[in-house]
Each structure stands twice: as C-alpha cells, then as structure tokens.
C-alpha cells in the first residue's frame, strides 16, 4: 500500500512550515530514511526523511510553499505497485447511451486515488479516540495516528496523554505604573478594589481574545483565585467573570475571602475554574512557577509590584512579574505566549480592558 509523506509537526508554536527544497523529484526512487525534503520552522531548518522506500509520486507542494503540519504532500509507492497500475485496474464504467438524458456519468475513480484525495487535508480519528480526546479536552490535531489508514485511534490518544510532559511556564515582566495609578484612583473614588480584582478583570477581557486559553467546553469564564487567608492559600472561583463589572468582581472576592476566613467556603465555590490566578505579591515574591492543581486549567501567577524609582524621582514607576503555567498538550505554546503578552500589555495599559 502506498505510504503517505506527511509533514511532521516540528514546530511547537506554528502549524505551518515552509518547504525549502525537495531532494528528490516526482518519479524518483527513494530509500527509507533518506533525506527527502527540507523545511524551515520558525526556529530552524531541518531535513525530513522518507517514511518508506519506493517511488515518489503525487507531490503536491513545491519549494517555497507553506505546508501544514500533518498534511500529506506526496506518496511513496513501493516497487511492483504503482499509482498508474492502480488507476488502470478498476473496470471502466459502461459508457452511457449516446441519447441518454442525464449528464455523462463521471469516470470511475480508482479507490486509492479517492482515498488519497480524501486524506489530503484531513486527519482521521476514530470515533472512540475522538470521544476520549474530547472527554479529556485534549487537542488531538497534533497526535500522529497509527491506526487503519493512518487514523488516530484510542491507543494514540492514550500514548499522548501518558507521555510525561512537564508543564510549561512562561514569564514576563511588565510595567505596572498605570495599574498602580488606577488602583489608587479607584480607592480614592471609594471603590474598594484589590489588585486581584483588577487582574481578574484583565484576565477575563484577555480570554475573550484568546478563548483557547479558557479550559471550558461550554465557554463560561470562571477564574479561580488563591485567597491569602492562611498558609494553605485556598482556591475560590469567581464565576462568569467576563459578564461582571469590576464592582461586582470586588464584592464577590471580598465575600469569598470572608467566607474562607470564617472557614465556611462551600465546596462548589472552589470548583470548576477554567483559569486560575495566584498572586504571591503580598509575600514579597517577585516571580514564581505556579503548580497546576487541576490538570486542565492554565494558571496565571502574579508577583510583587516593585517600585523602580529612586526616592529622589518625581514620578514613581512600578513593575510586576507575570507568569503563565500550562500543559503544552492542551494549549499550544504559541497560544500561551500570545495570551501572556496580551495580559502583560493590558497590565501596562489597563485602558485596554475597556476596549
């Protein structure tokens, strides 16, 4: 059976690579593991080896083309079987009578050709594997299928899920001067907000732009915050943050904090977070790696708001470290980086939360 030449998922941050050069031409004989073509990722240029020995046929991408990870760009046909043989073998459809009124019947398409056309832009996954992946909210597009016709089957999803994979933490420092000023102004206006409330608002707004970061199939934005009521830092969840005003958020976090202090935080108020926020600023921590408690839920960490100014400075300037920890099997690194950038930009300019 012909073997598909598949673009390997080489880049952690992009789905498309650039095809730099074919080392073989259509119709050439190639050997398994022999360099077949060169691709350029966002980081490097790499050779891709032939998945099988045979003749290179049906080349569908040329040098300079953008090619999508896991798509098929050619076929290797083993010696003794060729695409043209396969095409020639099925019986020819009987010709319609000359006077037949319906349009001329389509020529018979060889089964192989049909299949190749079908697989060209699609990744097949078995219903069972898809169900499993969706239950675990697992991004199966990047899994390499080992099942019938290259389909992703249950064992492939299990293998990907079980692959030991450390969570990724991305960290950035951002200018917090405007955030501090906004906080001060709101307090001056009698709005009792804490920094967590402002960050919650910023996160909810940013999730609108990057919904893939929100660990929810239903779409609700429920952000968990660690409460600084005791050393355990219990997590409480503010539901539907995206639909709430800053005042409503502030009121709710205050309630949660008081409930936690009184020790009567209801269990359901601690569950169902689709993103979590941990602020260790009050402990004087600059930056840290948050630990993912619920496996599917990305976690944003906020450090101490530091002053950058000298006592002699006329205006005061502040900065803060922001980090994002997530499972790269569930969220692509590039998506996470984009989200963190947006969060940092909105902290730097909180007006963006109004937009």
């Amino acid at each position, binding site marked *: 059976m012909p073997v598909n030449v598949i673009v390997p998922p080489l880049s952690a941050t992009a789905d498309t690579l650039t095809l730099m050069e074919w080392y073989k031409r259509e119709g050439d004989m190639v050997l398994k593991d022999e360099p077949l073509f060169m691709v350029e990722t966002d980081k490097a240029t790499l050779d891709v080896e032939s998945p099988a020995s045979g003749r290179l046929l049906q080349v569908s991408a040329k040098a300079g083309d953008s090619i999508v990870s896991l798509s098929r760009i050619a076929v290797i046909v083993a010696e003794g079987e060729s695409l043209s043989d396969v095409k020639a073998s099925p019986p020819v459809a009987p010709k319609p009578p000359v006077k037949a009124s319906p349009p001329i019947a389509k020529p018979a398409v060889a089964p192989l050709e049909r299949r190749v056309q079908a697989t060209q832009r699609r990744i097949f996954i*078995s*219903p*069972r*594997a*898809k*169900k499993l992946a969706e239950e675990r909210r697992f991004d199966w597009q990047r899994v390499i299928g080992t*099942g*019938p016709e290259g*389909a992703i*089957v*249950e064992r492939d999803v299990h293998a990907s899920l079980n692959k030991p994979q450390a969570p990724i933490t991305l960290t950035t420092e951002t200018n917090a001067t405007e955030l501090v000023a906004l906080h001060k102004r709101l307090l001056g206006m009698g709005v009792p907000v804490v920094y967590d409330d402002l960050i919650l608002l910023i996160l909810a707004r940013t999730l609108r732009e990057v919904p893939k970061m929100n660990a929810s199939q239903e779409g609700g934005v429920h952000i968990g915050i660690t409460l600084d009521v005791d050393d355990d830092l219990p997590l409480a969840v503010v539901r539907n943050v995206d639909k709430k005003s800053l005042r409503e958020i502030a009121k709710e976090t205050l309630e949660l904090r008081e409930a936690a202090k009184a020790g009567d935080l209801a269990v359901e108020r601690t569950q169902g977070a689709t993103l979590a926020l941990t602020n260790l600023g009050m402990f004087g921590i600059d930056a840290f790696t948050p630990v993912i408690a619920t496996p599917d839920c990305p976690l944003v960490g906020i450090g101490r708001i530091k002053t950058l100014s000298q006592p002699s400075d006329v205006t005061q300037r502040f900065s803060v470290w922001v980090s994002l920890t997530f499972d790269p099997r569930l969220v692509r690194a590039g998506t996470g980086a984009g989200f963190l950038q947006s969060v940092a930009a909105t902290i730097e300019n909180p007006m963006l939360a109004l937009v």
Partner: protein
Amino acid sequence: MALMTIAEALREGIREEMRRDPTVFCLGEDIGVPGGFGGAFTVTLGLSDEFGHNRILDTPISEIGIAGVAIGAAMTGMRPIADVQYGDFLFCMMDQLANQAAKMTYMSGGTVKVPLVMRAPVGSTRRGSQHAQSLEAFFTHIPGLKVLAPSTAYDAKGLLKSAIRDENPVLIFEHKLLYGSKGGRSEKGALSPIGEVPDEDYTVPIGKGAIRRVGKDVTIVGKLLTVYRALEAAEELAKEGIEAEVIDPRTLIPLDKELILESVRKTGRLVVVEEDNLTHGWGAEIAAIVAEEAFFYLDAPIKRVASLDTPPPFAPPMEAYYLPSVERVIAAVKSQF
C-alpha cells in the same frame, strides 16, 4: 450428563418432546425409512422404532408438500418438526413460509398460531451450488419467523425444545460440519463438536447469545461454523497479543443485540464472520446495528468476512477460496489495528 454430538443432542431433544407431548411429530424425506440414515444427517435415526411411522412421517420428495402439511398441521393444533433435507430446498417452500406461516398470526389478529419447527442443514461441504448455501439471512429478513442457529450440542437440544414449545414458526439452521453425523453420513472436514448435555429436561431461551471466548481487543461475531473459525482465529491472534472476544448469538431472530453492543463498547472493534455471501447479508445487519448504536465506541472500521458473491463452487480448491477462512478472519482483525 452425557457427551453428545449435535445430531445426537437433536435426536434426544426430539425424542423427549415427542414423549412429553403427543401433538409433536416429525415429517421429511427419508427420515424414518427402514434401513435409511435417519434423514440426510442421521438426526432422526431410530426414532421410528419408538414412535412408529405415523409420528415419524416419511414424505415424497416434495418440499412444497412438506411445508404445506407442516403449516396446516401447526395451524390445526399439532406441533410438527419438518426436516428439510438440505436448506437450499427452503426456496421451494418460500411462499408457504414467507407469505403464509410468517403472516398468519398477524393476519388473523392473533387467533391463529403456527407452532411450526423447521430444521434446515446449511453450509458448504463439497456438494456444489444447490446443496451448500447458507440461507439464514433470507429468513431473518421475514417478520414473523424466529430463526435459530445452534453451534453446540447443549444449545442444539435446548433451543430445539424451546422452538417446539414456542407458539410461532421457528426455523432452526444446523451446520453440516457440526452435526457429527456418523457412518455413511460422516462429512469430510467436519468439526463435529462433542459437548455435555444434561440428562434432565432443560431449555435454552430464544434470544440469548453466548460469549464463547473473552477478550478485550476485538469482538468477533460468528454463527454456526464461523463461531469455530472465529475461535481458531482468536487463538492465532492471541499469539500476537490480540485478545479477541468471540460471540455466538445462537438466536438470529430475536437477536441478543445488547450482548454484541456491550462487547463492542469494551473492545472498540467488530468483525462479523458468516458463511453466507457478503452482499446485503446478515453481517451487514450486525454491522449496521453497531454503527448506529455504538458508533462512538468504535476505534476502527467494522469488517465483514463472508463467502464470495458467487454460488458455492463445487471444486474443493475453489470452495476453500470462496469460504470465510481462518486466515481471512485474522487478516480482517489485523486490518483494524
């Protein structure tokens, strides 16, 4: 508890039911003639010695006549067991079975019952095209008939008894290579499974399947001889680490659907093996049920292994090529991994 072949178990089942109920009688070609074989496959051998020729009724070679007598007798209070010498001859009886027996209870608003049992040997055994077909799917398609396919001695006797006591027309398909017929009627290449059969009265309920082998990786559904082909394939596959679950529905109509679905939910793969030819067959029906009701549990395309879409060939090498071999079952299973 005694060890019996399927032919012996059927014979004992008929004997016990005829002793229990005077309305039960057998009819068919050469089923009781002195010096005969006891039907083509020895099932009724010796029964005329005990019950006489009025209850072990030899008929002329007229399948239309046998069907007519049996259906008429059933409608008027008897419980006939009609012996079809070769299942292929059921085609002669088609109008009486499909248009009369199957519909009578419905058309009479339930006032007329047809407690008929018809036993038909099937399977390709080097007898050419007209003595070798597997006709189960023709009859599973007719509403109003119950269709049984026992593959062990225990089931053969237990299902036969359930059939005789049932108020509806019941067809029992029996495989020639499973009977264990002896002497002049022994079959080349027969499996002739011998099984334990209780001495006391028992029945096997109509509509309950059996798991013949437990496995976790693939569900293979077979019937009659193909249950054994599936079991043989399963042993080979086990050597390569694939554990197949083999299901024998035993009753084709009504079907123990849940047993099959439950197994597929566990294994994620289904292969149906049948000796009928492929197109529009019984395997297609099983595949459709699973596709409709367990789609999201499937991890690979469903595969059917069946005879080719030709009449059964006479020449042994061609017949072997035509039939669903163990190798084809193994290949179908492997294609799912």
